[in-house]
Every structure is written in structure tokens, then in C-alpha cells.
């Protein structure tokens, strides 16, 4: 198994990706919140200062605007020219207010120093601050009236708005956060602060956040790996046990502590599969061994007889006896091989049966008559209770079953016993029953009676012949018909074998067969 294809790996990848998305989202949100928080803090400070400044100016009065100097714009290098002096026609609907109030430079500058040197101001705009504040005041026309220290060089006057009230507005200009307002007369007050400390703080915060995020991710991944391992471990155990069983001892079972979980169910299913495989293999091995054993006996006879015959010169009679013995052994082998072949054909189930309409009653009658000489010889009475029992069946196969059942009945019955063959219909199918009043079969043998090579009574099998395949073949034939062969018996209560052949509806051959029979 390739590592990258393992479930653990896949779980880990998905888990990791999910974790990464969640942590990244969380970090980004936190960062944003923190950043806006810092800006709000900054804004509050700016607001305080702007208000103070506004109040101060309102109290002391602004330096009066200089008289208009219509002879041109001031050589103001502090702001972008477009802002102070938009080109004609560039701002439709916007009156060019500064044209008439164009701030003259030089003499207009310099508000009364006492105004801006007020202790409140110097306290608020202490340049010793880590992030010092600064302010600018522009006159209505545009010229800079006053500034504090540390004003950035590129400071420029915000665009004036229509309603020049004391509404405070903020702007982010380059690396600075600024807040400004316009007084009703049109002066512009602006306080600002460098954002560098905030950015530095945010950078630090980002690093911390990143570190924590990475830590959480690492812990999450490790935990996920651990959990996945824990969840996977029973699977690995089951897999290892299954491999071990498949490679070697089929009798072994998977033992898992997970009895109730899905994995426990999987283990149970595998165990059941192994049990059936094991049973099938054992059955196969037993069958092969039994077959070999059955063949070995006649082979032993032939080998022994021929070795003996060839050991020295024999009389014609002795040779004849040897050949006869060998022939008997060979016939036995032949019979056994035929039975095995028939079983293997029936097992393969690929061979379609030659099912034709027939009447079990007729077949029963025929076989009773065939059996009569043998039964008379053993002083066994034969009885018939035959009612029409039509069905679609392979007459050859049914005959084989009947011969087997009747022969068994005669073999195992004692003088004076009765054998009875009865047929009748049942549920559209047909039934034939061969029962006897013989010694019956012990309960311990009944479940195994139809097993291959099983012999209920070892003491008789050699004299009665057969390898213990007869009933197994009968059962296979019955099953090939979709039917059943069952036995009921008790010691001293006789035995009764019942063959049920269901209605031949499942057989596609039945209707044409019937047609053929009718014509």
C-alpha cells in the first residue's frame, strides 16, 4: 500500500486543509479587528486634539484672513497644485472659492504664537510622543496659517466641502492618519499622526498571530494524526489478521476488541467468510482423501493379486481366480469413478437437466416391479400407494434415486419387513416416498446421511458394497431439480425417504416438453 493512498494520509490531508482554512480565517479576522481597533484608538486621540484645537481657535480667534490678492495663486509648494488650484473646468459645478480668497504667502503666515503655544496645545502635540501628533491650519483661501512641528513635508490642504461645518473627517494619506474639519468661516484644521507605530504594532501582532496559528495548526495536525491512527489501528489489526489467515491457517479468527462498532461488524463478516472458506476447504480435503481411500483398496487388491500371481508359475485356475479378483476390483473402481464424475457434473451445475413431463407414479410402479424378484428373495413385501404425481423431471435421474432408495430399503430390511412406495401431488409439485419397516437409522447418523462417503453402518457397507456416495448423488440430483430429498427415521421404526419435485414452472423446458408429449 502506497503511503499517499492510505486512508490515514488522506484523512490527514483533509483535516490539515480544513484546519488551515479555519485558522487562516480566524487570524485574518482577528488581525482586521485589531487593526481597526488601533485605528479607532488613533482616531479618538485625533478627535480629542482636533476638538481642542477647534475650541482653542474658537476661543482665541483665528488670525484674520489676509486681503484677497487677485494677482495669482500663491506659490504654495506644500500641496499638490490640483487640489488647491484645479484647472479650469476640471471641477464642474464647483466654485473656485480660493480664487477670490487666494491666500497670499509670507505676511499671512504666523498666527499669534500665544495661540499655538498654549499649554494645552503643547501638551497635546508633545513631540516627545512615540507617535507624535501634528496639526496644520489653513486659512479659508488656502494658505497655510499655522503648523505644529513634525508636519510631513508633503502635507496639503484637504479639499473643502460644500457644507463647511465642524464635521470631522478622516483620511489616510501615505503613512499618516489625519482628521480634519472646516470651521464655518472656511478655515481648515487638520491634525495627524504617523501610522508607523500602529503598523509596527500590527506587524508584531501579525507575527504573534502567525506563530499562534502555526502552533494551533501543528497541534491540530498532530492530534489529527493521532486520532486517525487510533481510528485506523483496528483496521490495520483486522487487515493484518486477515492477511495472516489468508496466507496460512484458515482456522484462525480475527480477534478484535471492537465488537459493536462498524469495524467489529467488518471483522465478523470476514470471520464468517473465513469460516465458510475453511469449511469448504476441509470438506474438499476430506472428499479427496475419502475418494483416494476408496480407490486405494481396489488398487491394493489388484497390486497384491498380480504380485502374487507373478511370483511363480501358477495353474490356469489360479490365474483365472486372480483375473476375476482383479476384475471385481476394477469394476469397483469404475463404479467409484463414475459416481465421482456424476457428482462433479452435478456440482458444476452447468449441465442442464433433460426435464420432461413424467409421472412419478409410473416411475414408482416400474421400479417396484423391477425390485420385486430381489424383494421376494429376501421375503420382503412391496406395497404401492400410487396417485398421479406429474412433474417435469429428468426421468433418468429420478430412476437413479428410486433404484438407490429401493435397493437400500431391500438391503437394510429384514425378512418379513415391508417396503412401501407412495406418490401424490403437493402444491403443484410431486412427491414420492419410499418407506420401509426395517431397523431404521440412529439419530446420530441422520444429519450426515447424505454426506459424501458417509456410512451409517460400517459393519454392513463392505458386504452391501458402495462407497457411501449413493445418497449423496441422490441428494444432488434432487437439488438439481430444485427439489429436496429428506429422510425420517428412528431405530426400530423404519425409514422413510421423501423426494419432492417442485412444479416445473422454473424450468423453461417444461412447456415445450408438454407440447411434445401432447402431439
Amino acid at each position, binding site marked *: 500500500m502506497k503511503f499517499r493512498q492510505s486512508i490515514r494520509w488522506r484523512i490527514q490531508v483533509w483535516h490539515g486543509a480544513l484546519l488551515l482554512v479555519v485558522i487562516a480565517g480566524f487570524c485574518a479576522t482577528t488581525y482586521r479587528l485589531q487593526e481597526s481597533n488601533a485605528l479607532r484608538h488613533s482616531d479618538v486621540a485625533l478627535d480629542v486634539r482636533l476638538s481642542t484645537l477647534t475650541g482653542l481657535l474658537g476661543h482665541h480667534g483665528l488670525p484674520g484672513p489676509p486681503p484677497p490678492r487677485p494677482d495669482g495663486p500663491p506659490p504654495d509648494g506644500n500641496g499638490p497644485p490640483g487640489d488647491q488650484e484645479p484647472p479650469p473646468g476640471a471641477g464642474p459645478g464647483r466654485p473656485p472659492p480660493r480664487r477670490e480668497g487666494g491666500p497670499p504667502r509670507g505676511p499671512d503666515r504666523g498666527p499669534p504664537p500665544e495661540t499655538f503655544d498654549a499649554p494645552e496645545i503643547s501638551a497635546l502635540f508633545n513631540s516627545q510622543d512615540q507617535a507624535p501628533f501634528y496639526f496644520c491650519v489653513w486659512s479659508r483661501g488656502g494658505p497655510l496659517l499655522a503648523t505644529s512641528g513634525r508636519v510631513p513635508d508633503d502635507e496639503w490642504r484637504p479639499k473643502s466641502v460644500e457644507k463647511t461645518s465642524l464635521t470631522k473627517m478622516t483620511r489616510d494619506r501615505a503613512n499618516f492618519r489625519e482628521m480634519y474639519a472646516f470651521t464655518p468661516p472656511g478655515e481648515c484644521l487638520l491634525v495627524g499622526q504617523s501610522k508607523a507605530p500602529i503598523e509596527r504594532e500590527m506587524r508584531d501582532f501579525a507575527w504573534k498571530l502567525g506563530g499562534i496559528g502555526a502552533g494551533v495548526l501543528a497541534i491540530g495536525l498532530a492530534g489529527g494524526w493521532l486520532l486517525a491512527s487510533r481510528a485506523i489501528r483496528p483496521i490495520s489489526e483486522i487487515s493484518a489478521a486477515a492477511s495472516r489467515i489468508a496466507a496460512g491457517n484458515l482456522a484462525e479468527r480475527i480477534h478484535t476488541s471492537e465488537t459493536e462498532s462498524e469495524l467489529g461488524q467488518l471483522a465478523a463478516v470476514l470471520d464468517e467468510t473465513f469460516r465458510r472458506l475453511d469449511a469448504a476447504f476441509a470438506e474438499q480435503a476430506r472428499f479427496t482423501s475419502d475418494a483416494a481411500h476408496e480407490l486405494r*483398496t481396489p488398487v*491394493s487388491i489388484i497390486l497384491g493379486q498380480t504380485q502374487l500371481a507373478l511370483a*511363480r508359475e501358477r495353474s490356469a485356475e489360479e490365474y483365472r481366480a486372480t483375473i476375476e*479378483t482383479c476384475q471385481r476390483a476394477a469394476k469397483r473402481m469404475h463404479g467409484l469413478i463414475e459416481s465421482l464424475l456424476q457428482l462433479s457434473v452435478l456440482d458444476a451445475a452447468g449441465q442442464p437437466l433433460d426435464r420432461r413431463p413424467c409421472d412419478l407414479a409410473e416411475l414408482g410402479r416400474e421400479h417396484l416391479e423391477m425390485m420385486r424378484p430381489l424383494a421376494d428373495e429376501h421375503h420382503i413385501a412391496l406395497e404401492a400407494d400410487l396417485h398421479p404425481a406429474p412433474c417435469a423431471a429428468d426421468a433418468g435421474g429420478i430412476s437413479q434415486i428410486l433404484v438407490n432408495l429401493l435397493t437400500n430399503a431391500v438391503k437394510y430390511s429384514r425378512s418379513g419387513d415391508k417396503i412401501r412406495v407412495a406418490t401424490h401431488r403437493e402444491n403443484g409439485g410431486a412427491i414420492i416416498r419410499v418407506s420401509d419397516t426395517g431397523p431404521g437409522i440412529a439419530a446420530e447418523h441422520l444429519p450426515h446421511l447424505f454426506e459424501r462417503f458417509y456410512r451409517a453402518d460400517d459393519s454392513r457397507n463392505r458386504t452391501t458394497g458402495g462407497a457411501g456416495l449413493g445418497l449423496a448423488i441422490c441428494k444432488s440430483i434432487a437439488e438439481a431439480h430444485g427439489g429436496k430429498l429428506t429422510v425420517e427415521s428412528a431405530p426400530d421404526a423404519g425409514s422413510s425417504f421423501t423426494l419432492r419435485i417442485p412444479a416445473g414452472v422454473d424450468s423453461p423446458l417444461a412447456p415445450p416438453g408438454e407440447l411434445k408429449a401432447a402431439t
Partner: protein
Amino acid sequence: MRILIVEDEPDFLHTLAQAMREEGYAVDEAPDGDEGLYKATEWNYDAIVLDVMLPVMDGFEVLRRLRKKKKTPVLMLTARTKVGDRIHGLDTGADDYLAKPVDLNELAARVRALIRRANGDASATILIGDVQIDTAAHRATKGGEPVTLTAREYSLLEFLAVRRGKIVTRTELYEHLHDENDTPISNLVDVHVFNLRKKLGVDFIVTHRGQGYCVGE
């Protein structure tokens, strides 16, 4: 020597019995475990060939019950070649094991070896005076010269020779030289002893009056 063969397959039993008879044994037959056990306990066989797969009572059971009463050498015969079966058989008290299909010569050799060991001999050749008896080849020589013996004479000689130094009763001789189907005439043993003395020397077989015979005293 008289042996018992217990085997349920009539043709195979017949084959084994015939083979062992041709080896010079008196052979009794039993077709199932019950009869096998009965005969094995009733008679003092020199060896028993016992099939494992027997009706009524299997070979292991026969052996287990027999071992409570007798130490007769037993060779187990089976179609099953499983090691477990062999171990079980040997542990139950079998002296040897042979798997079917058997080679009749091997069976004969193993039975010979069993009987030899049971009588405390390690070699297949017995030397008594100047008479040498080759139990494998069923031949005897006297002073290096081969002695022509009938099958009965050889059997008698071998039986006395393996029990050399011991007195063997006439009943024992009858029991071990004839199988269940023989109807031995009582003085037949005397005839064989007489013939053997003629061939191997008058003093070779000593008669202990009222007790029996003895060789190699």
C-alpha cells in the same frame, strides 16, 4: 508359524492370506474387528496383521483391547498414511505399520522381522550346531550343504529353531503349524520330526517324553 490377518475387504484378505500361506505361514482370517479380537485372544499367534479401518470395531480398538491380555506382535495395515494415525497406532501398542497399497514381499519381510524380534533374534539366520537356517530364504544347510525340506518340514524346523533351547509341546506345534481350517492328523507332527531327523541328524531334535521337542540344547 501361525498368523492372523484381520481385514474387512474379502478380496484383499484373500490376497494377503494367500501370500502369507505361500510364505509358509499358517494363516487365520478375520473379516471384522470383533472376530479379529476374539481369535487374537483365543489363540497364540506368532504375529497379527491388523487393518485399521474395520467394521464393528476399528483396528485401534482391537489393538487396545488385545494389549490388555497379550503381547502378540501386531503389524497395522491402513489406507490412511497420515502420520497422526501411525503415531496413534504405534502408541496404542502396534509393533509396526504398513500403508496400503502394500507390497506383499515387504509385508512378509516385516512379519518375519516382527516374529524374529519377538523371539529375541536380531538376525534372519539361525545357527544350531552345523545346521544353518535362513528364515528369509526359507532354506536350511547342514555343514554348508543345502538340505531339501518340504514346506511343513521347514515350518516345523523354523518354529523349533526360533525357540531353541526350549521345550515345545506337541499342542504348540499343532497350534502354530496349522491354521483354523486344517484338520491335522495327530501323528503328522511325528512324521515331520522323523523326516527332519533323517535330513539333519538324529540328535538334532531331542524328544522330551511327555513334554515335547527341543533343538539346540
